[in-house]
């Protein structure tokens, strides 16, 4: 449906590159081409530095004392190294309540997302299914046109979901993009496999649970992580629909912190004092929110990338 790339054929490309090597060595790099390469390396190194700097800066601030931060001395390395701020934040009840809520919401929302996405993607991956195109269109249309904030708000409120977990978990349960990724993966499965299973007496549910899903671990892992990260990071649903502090996810805890800073700023008062004292507390909170993502990040990166590629293959 959404086609960004014509079926990428990395295998073919790589094989081509290997075969081409002798030819490349015959036509040697000109000085101009070498200069171009150096240029690319320099620019890309700068890009990496700029990309990573904010993370390093936050980490450095989280271990620094507020005096050094207020003096504007903390950049790449902590000044006045201490872990007191971590103690302060970690002894705050609201922080832990928020963290626990975030974990609960993420687990629940991810589970719901996975079930709904898998069911829809599997059924619509069957080419013989009557009405398949209509169902897909039904889903894809919502990518390009949506109800908007107010009607959504009115709906969730009138369903009585305000101040319940469901307001956070349900409205964002299905991502159509993820459905398309998964559907593409299922479509690529050999049909003989499922035919054999059905001859052996398995029905559709059995085939899905015992044959298809065990063979789809890569795409399931990708989807799981896509959903988990997006639910972990979400804040707006909670911001709209939850009033009880004990239900806030940790992103709202941080949001209220930075909103406090900007409202002090907008009142025109000298913000440096109030703003700066909380700078290291903010930094610690940010580090703790980002930590789980950064920890799993190196392991999941390749899955994410292959997931994006799957979803964009032209059909």
């Amino acid at each position, binding site marked *: 449906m*959404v*086609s*960004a*790339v014509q079926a*990428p054929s*990395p295998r*073919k*490309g790589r094989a081509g590159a290997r075969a081409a090597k002798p030819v*490349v060595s015959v*036509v040697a790099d000109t000085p*101009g*081409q070498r200069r*171009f*390469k150096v240029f*690319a390396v320099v620019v*890309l190194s700068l*890009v*990496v530095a700029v*990309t*990573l700097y*904010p*993370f390093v*800066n*936050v980490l450095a601030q989280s271990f620094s004392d507020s005096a050094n931060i207020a003096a*504007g001395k903390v950049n790449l390395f902590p000044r006045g190294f201490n872990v007191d701020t971590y103690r302060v934040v970690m002894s705050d009840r609201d922080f832990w309540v928020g963290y626990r809520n975030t974990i609960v919401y993420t687990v629940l929302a991810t589970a719901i997302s996975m079930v*709904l*996405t898998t*069911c*829809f993607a*599997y059924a619509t991956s*069957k080419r013989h*299914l*009557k*009405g398949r195109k209509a169902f897909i269109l039904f*889903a894809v249309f919502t990518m*390009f046109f949506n*109800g*908007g904030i*107010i*009607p959504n*708000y*009115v*709906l969730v409120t009138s369903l009585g979901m305000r101040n319940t977990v469901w307001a956070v978990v*349900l409205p964002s*349960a299905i991502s159509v993009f993820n459905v398309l990724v998964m559907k593409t993966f299922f479509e690529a499965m050999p049909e003989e496999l499922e035919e054999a299973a059905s001859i052996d007496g398995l*029905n*559709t549910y059995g085939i899905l649970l015992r044959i298809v899903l065990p063979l789809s671990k890569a795409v399931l892992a990708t989807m799981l992580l896509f959903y988990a*990260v997006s639910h972990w990071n979400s*804040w707006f649903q909670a911001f709209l629909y939850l009033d009880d502090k004990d239900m806030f996810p940790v992103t709202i805890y941080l949001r209220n912190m*930075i909103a406090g800073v*900007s409202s002090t700023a*907008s009142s025109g008062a000298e*913000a440096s004092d109030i703003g*700066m004292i909380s700078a290291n507390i*903010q930094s610690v909170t*940010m580090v703790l*929110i*980002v930590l789980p993502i950064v920890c799993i*990040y190196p392991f999941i990166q390749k899955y994410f990338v292959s997931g994006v590629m799957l979803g*964009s293959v032209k059909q």
Partner: protein
Amino acid sequence: MAVSTPPAKRLRSRAPLADAAAVRAPRTTWRSALRKDWRLYSLLVLPLLWFLVFKYLPMAGNVIAFRRFTPGGSVFGEEWVGLDYVQMFIDDPTFWAVFRNTLVLGGLTLLVGFPAPIIFALLLNELKARRFKRFVQTASYLPHFMSIVIVVAMIMQLVSLRGTINQVVGLFGADPVNFIQNPDWFRTIYVTSDVWQTMGWGAILYLAALTTIDDSLYEAARIDGANRWQQTWHVTLPGIAPTVVTLLILNIGSFLAVGFEKVLLLQNPLTYETGDVISTYLYRVGLQSNSFSYATAIGLFESLIGLVLVLSANAVSRRVAGSSLW
């Protein structure tokens, strides 16, 4: 919509009829399809219900743009008022101010944010060293996985009075700038941070497209004496053109829907002058002043423009470049 388990008995008794219909028409009838695939259809029930409730009901809920709505009353409003609310925002100078802001912010984001991943991917493609390449990619994807709250918190720390940016400003002997309160800086901050967050991830699709370009094309170009720029211009860019066009369509379609959550977190009353966009304005009008119908009218207008933009960008690209989304 909800297709559930059909009563099997009744269907079986009618089966001969259904079969006859199938012979006459090449397409299977719904009845035989349901009988054969009811398990597959049963898998669709919950997701379709979800789309219906959480996507299509709110779309229908847009009728309150033309009906008077009272909080606590019907989701679809109480009585028809025609185009009153549309007239209202057409007469509202604030609406046109935020409309302009949205166009400028969306346009700038498109102008800077769209080419950035392409250039990034082209530069990455120059590298032969596998390890450095992978390191650059790994680092550049990281911001994509950050919550928008984290991103805004980072921005606020970097541009604060004693933050890194102001330290650099200080190196040039200038006074610190209160970036976050200054409407002149809102767009720069927004667009820069957007590029920071999306450039690496956005390059993935281009990198994939680049691997599909046949190496022999480059060799032929080299033998013909093409230099690096000429190779890029005549081989690489045509090779990734379909990807570029597709993503451009998608970007144009969503360009009015500027990052609502980010703008909402980043703006404050002092920066409304440049930083207030349609979605944040209607959010305030609707949910903070309780003018639900009025805000819905504005939102519907925005969604419709978005839809028209996608459809026309798609039509143009089908005609001009021969590639389209559907």
